[in-house]
């Protein structure tokens, strides 16, 4: 949450001045279109508009972020094929954040200051978003951020297309209580802000429901020795292991869980995760997570028509053996939401786009239907997926209504 006032956009003024200084002939044509769509200072020409794609193409995060890059490129290509935005074809400039937070900040600045992009689709980890955020606010950019995350943030310059913590957690725990009769929870996570905040909210909610947390443990990112905590879990006999372990650690965790004789298909204990998507299962192996439950808003197997078309197009573009996880779908929403907002505003001007974004809806979203809340997060459904041997999820629960995003949940902080 930022309280400082926005600085006047010097660049924009400078650009305007240069445009004034252009020869009269050019001035006429430029100003005519500029006033039509109000694209002052941005990389918008008569027939193209430029956006930025900022993810890690190299480094440790590349494996996770590749799906997002592919989704964003696909969305842009599809929008172009259907006529573009306000009659302009979208060009993108891709930059590599290199899994390094200072690099993310540098590249974001480059995209805004030098390339003058109208929007940036990007980031994955909270660390990269936190690094990019001050840049977005300083230069008045618009970031479409695709990952489910911890909440506690709301920026006028970011649209959060993934779920915030309460949308994933509260319904997940309710579901475990109501349909599985769970009473005792064991919380486990990687040691950084997202798992810690998620587990904090989970604990509050569990206690609110009159249930019990029997253990809470954290391990560093990349940790691969879970045997001692598995022993603890066996001793405490929880009904649910609630995990927010991320990335490669999951491979070790689920293999060791299986080796320790905990069979996920028996659901004793039941494992509920916020962080294992189809992408991670590729690494873990479907046979090791069969029976796992995941609380997310999107699964590749969602049976609606939007999703069928999306999966088909995605595979056609990027290969048949590819899987699509929750974040990949959220990344796909970015360009589409931006397009919808630009068209409604009739302008590429960031301030106008920002004003129109609340209330923008997508009926064509693979996850079904989404709408932008005034707090810049999406209304979305909560879903529980049940992992199968082939690495896909069966959707066993879907909230009837869209869940209102609430990045600053009262009573959960």
């Amino acid at each position: 949450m930022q309280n400082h006032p926005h600085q006047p956009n010097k660049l924009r003024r400078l650009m305007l001045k240069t445009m004034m200084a252009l020869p009269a002939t050019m001035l006429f044509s430029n100003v005519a279109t500029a006033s039509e769509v109000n694209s002052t200072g941005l990389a918008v020409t008569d027939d193209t508009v430029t956006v930025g794609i900022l993810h890690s193409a190299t480094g440790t995060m590349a494996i996770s972020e590749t799906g997002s890059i592919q989704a964003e490129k696909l969305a842009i290509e599809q929008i172009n094929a259907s006529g573009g935005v306000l009659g302009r074809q979208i060009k993108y400039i891709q930059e590599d954040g290199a899994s390094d937070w200072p690099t993310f900040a540098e590249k974001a600045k480059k995209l805004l200051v030098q390339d003058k992009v109208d929007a940036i689709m990007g980031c994955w980890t909270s660390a990269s978003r936190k690094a990019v955020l001050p840049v977005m606010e300083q230069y008045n950019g618009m970031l479409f951020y695709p990952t489910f995350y911890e909440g506690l943030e709301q920026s006028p310059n970011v649209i959060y297309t993934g779920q915030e913590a309460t949308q994933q957690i509260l319904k997940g725990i309710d579901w475990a209580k109501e349909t599985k009769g769970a009473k005792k929870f064991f919380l486990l996570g990687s040691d950084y802000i997202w798992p810690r905040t998620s587990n904090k909210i989970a604990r509050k909610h569990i206690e609110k429901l009159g249930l019990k947390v029997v253990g809470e443990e954290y391990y560093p990112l990349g940790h691969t020795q879970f045997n001692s905590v598995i022993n603890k879990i066996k001793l405490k006999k929880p009904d649910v292991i609630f995990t927010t372990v991320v990335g490669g650690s999951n491979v070790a965790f689920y293999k060791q869980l299986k080796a320790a004789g905990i069979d996920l298909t028996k659901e004793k204990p039941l494992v509920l995760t916020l962080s294992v998507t189809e992408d991670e299962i590729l690494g873990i192996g479907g046979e090791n997570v069969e029976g796992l439950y995941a609380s997310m808003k999107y699964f590749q197997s969602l049976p609606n028509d939007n999703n069928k078309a999306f999966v088909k197009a995605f595979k056609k573009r990027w290969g048949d053996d590819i899987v699509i996880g929750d974040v990949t779908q959220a990344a796909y929403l970015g360009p589409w939401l931006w397009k919808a907002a630009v068209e409604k505003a009739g302008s590429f001007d960031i301030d106008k786009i920002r004003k129109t974004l609340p209330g923008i809806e997508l009926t064509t979203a693979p996850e079904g239907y989404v709408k932008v809340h005034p707090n810049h997060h999406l209304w979305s459904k909560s879903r529980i997926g049940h992992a199968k041997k082939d690495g896909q999820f069966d959707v066993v629960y879907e909230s009837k209504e869209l869940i209102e995003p609430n990045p600053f949940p009262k009573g959960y902080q």
Partner: protein
Amino acid sequence: MVQTKLRSLAPKNDVISFLILAAILLVALPVLFDIFRLNLIGKYLTFAFVALGLVLSWGLGGILSLGQGIFFGLGGYAMAMFLKLEASSPENTQIQSTPGIPDFMDWNQLTELPWFWEPFHSFGFTVFAIFALPALFAYIIGAAMFKRRVGGVYFAIITQAIAAILTILIIGQQGFTGGVNGITDLRTLHGWDIRTDSAKYVLYFVNVVLLLITLVAAQYIRKSKLGRLLVAMRDSEDRVRFSGYDVSNFKIFIFCIAGIFSSIGGAMFTLQVGFMSPSLIGIVPSIEMVIFAAVGGNLSIFGAIYGALIVNWAKTILSESYPELWLFAMGALFIAVVLAFPKGLAGIYESHVQPWVDKKLKAIQKKKAEK
């Protein structure tokens, strides 16, 4: 007497090199580039501080430290802590459960500022810490190693291990350090907004001037008796020891100096980039810092600055042009440099450019004499 001493400290070539460098950094680059690029160059130059320190400790003293990121981080975090406290005034952090403490502490359920953060409310203490912390740290590491005559590869490995330990510590203690996110969203220095373009200009020039002062200091050390002793030590430690010198003290001293240089670079990095993160202090960045010095030429203090500048520049340009392949290009560049020019850029200069310049100068002088 005084004059000859001065002359030996600053031979004509060095004065010319210094003036050329100063002209490039203070005039040419600010004229040629807009503030976005200039700010990036400022960032590259913060690594030049580290490379300068490495030329002294590694090039001259033969002490290869693969953990200079430690010192870069000490300076960077000290500055970041000061700026973060300034950015976390109770008004700015109203929405937190505990207003008045940095946001990441609030997320980690800390309810009061840890004691070791308290002194960083003071700018004076922060500046003191930027010099004192790396010196103290380097002294402890140096004393523990050099007094026991641990050197060479073993020393390099141990510094690397310390860099790894420090990174793990920072990431693990996220309530106190910001963890893997680092310390972000730094805004003002004594109420002066460091994110504006004008502030970036000012910080760039402050950075360059500091760098030039550091360079002069490095040159002074290099030309002094101490510098000659260091070279002697590098080439034959035992002979120096048998001559009655306490080798370990000299080593500790130069290692401390290199640490302080890196720390100044880290502090300037935080000011110019606007945040500090553990990704700048671990093993990989520490090795990169050695590469800057190696590309420049590990014996040349001017080379160090050009090395840091050129390698980082290449990194930026390559990654902008080939976002998916640039790492390979960088790797190829390093291999090429090491194979083709083992003495780095300074080596190329010495073997090719300088003889040519000398020849031309002599020709001019000859002409003058003939007239």
